[in-house]
């Protein structure tokens, strides 16, 4: 049985080590904040200029001038700081953000990532996606393994416009955990009861299974 969204989120949260500075992309990655393992202290970065982002505010705490990059009202934890957009992206490009967990549309065996636009559909713009993908020290993509119509989202080469090249270290899907490995994906973990055959069938590139995967 494939992982639920909550299981995917929990699996992504397990990638976070104590003391890390982490940026969580809009959508499903945002949920990772709620599944940080006990004992792990993480500092969340929001690219509009905030470190130490806390949870959504209580109703009485809402401040229109404390928002995240998705323009949602948030809070600032003790020890947090605010700064301008140039310094915020200096943090990203300069490799100061240890980990970015981003949504994806396609990931290639090279680690190329597409997650910002689909030709023929109205674009929303890339916002900070290209900076995060190109700049964070480690990029993990959290996405479904295949599109609703069955089209593969782990592919040999991107069919969609790239967000950044060779940037993805790991992809976490509903079927398991996959590392782009140059000319194939290496499956390092499988959801319970998901077979190699199912993964192979739903992947648009070669998948190799680590011996210990089971």
């Amino acid at each position, binding site marked *: 049985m494939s992982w639920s969204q909550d299981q995917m989120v929990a699996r992504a949260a397990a990638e976070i080590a104590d003391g890390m500075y982490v940026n969580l992309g809009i959508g499903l990655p945002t949920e990772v*904040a*709620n599944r940080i393992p006990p004992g792990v202290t993480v500092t969340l970065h*929001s*690219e*509009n*200029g*905030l470190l130490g982002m806390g*949870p*959504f*505010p*209580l*109703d009485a705490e*809402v*401040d*229109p*001038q*404390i*928002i*995240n990059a*998705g*323009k*949602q*009202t*948030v809070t*600032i934890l003790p020890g947090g700081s*605010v*700064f*301008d*957009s*140039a310094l*915020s*992206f200096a943090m*990203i*490009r300069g490799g100061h953000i240890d980990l970015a967990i981003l949504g994806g549309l396609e990931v290639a065996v090279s680690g*190329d990532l597409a997650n910002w636009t689909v030709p023929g559909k*109205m*674009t*929303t*713009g*890339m*916002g*900070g*996606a*290209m*900076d995060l993908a*190109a*700049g964070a020290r480690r990029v993990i993509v959290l996405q479904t393994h295949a599109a609703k119509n069955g089209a593969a989202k782990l592919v040999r080469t991107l069919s969609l*416009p*790239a*967000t*950044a*090249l060779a940037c993805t270290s790991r992809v976490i899907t509903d079927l398991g955990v996959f590392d782009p490995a140059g000319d194939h994906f290496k499956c390092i973990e499988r959801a319970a009861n998901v077979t190699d055959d199912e993964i192979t069938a739903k992947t648009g590139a070669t998948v190799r299974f680590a011996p210990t995967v089971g």
Partner: protein
Amino acid sequence: MASNKVHADASAALAGLLRDGMTIMAGGFGLSGNAERCIDEIARSGVRGLHIISNNCGNQGQGLAILLKGRQVARVLCSFIGGNPDLAEQYAAGTVAVELSPQGTLAERIRAGGAGLGGFFTPTGVGTSVAEGKEVRDIDGKRYVLEKPLRADLAIVRAAVGDPDGNLRFYRTARAFNPLCATAARVTVAEVDHLCGKGELDPDDIHLPGIFVHRIFEAKDHKNPIEFRTTRPTSGTP
């Protein structure tokens, strides 16, 4: 310090500065940190054919979207156009040109404009449509794209506190692009929630030195619209 920066209101502060076809930088992020009175005054003035440089060009019909509604905008340079039906419609209709820039590249281009740099090499956008037509260079084994500085005729910025010398302090994430835009325009107008007395701000507490601010006025009761009001329940963790 430089005298006569203080004006009574947006109308006085923007007097003589607005003209058709000009380039305006605006420092807000979404609906946060916008110079609301300046936007209203630009709308009232009726200037057209504006080139807007801002991370968003308003959202949900508010902020800079007011200028879109008035068909005053010819061109937008921004990083994100989601949640902005006015822009989507005029972009699709071809009546507004949109250039998209990655958010960090946009911030850095504005900073470069204010800092007198001729351009910079950034890793962002290499191998993407953003790099098309631009120089891409291998530097010490990593590929970078050359991006150019941005300047404007006018910057409108919003701050929490200002003083008569134009020194500014911002509040929380309303900072964002505001201090950057202030550095990169021929004239910068600052709209502040509170105008304090000369010397009341400690030199260490000033976020943006007044040298970058040419005109300043106090505007109370900003709307500060919320784009997505997200809350957590009263008790328990998020």
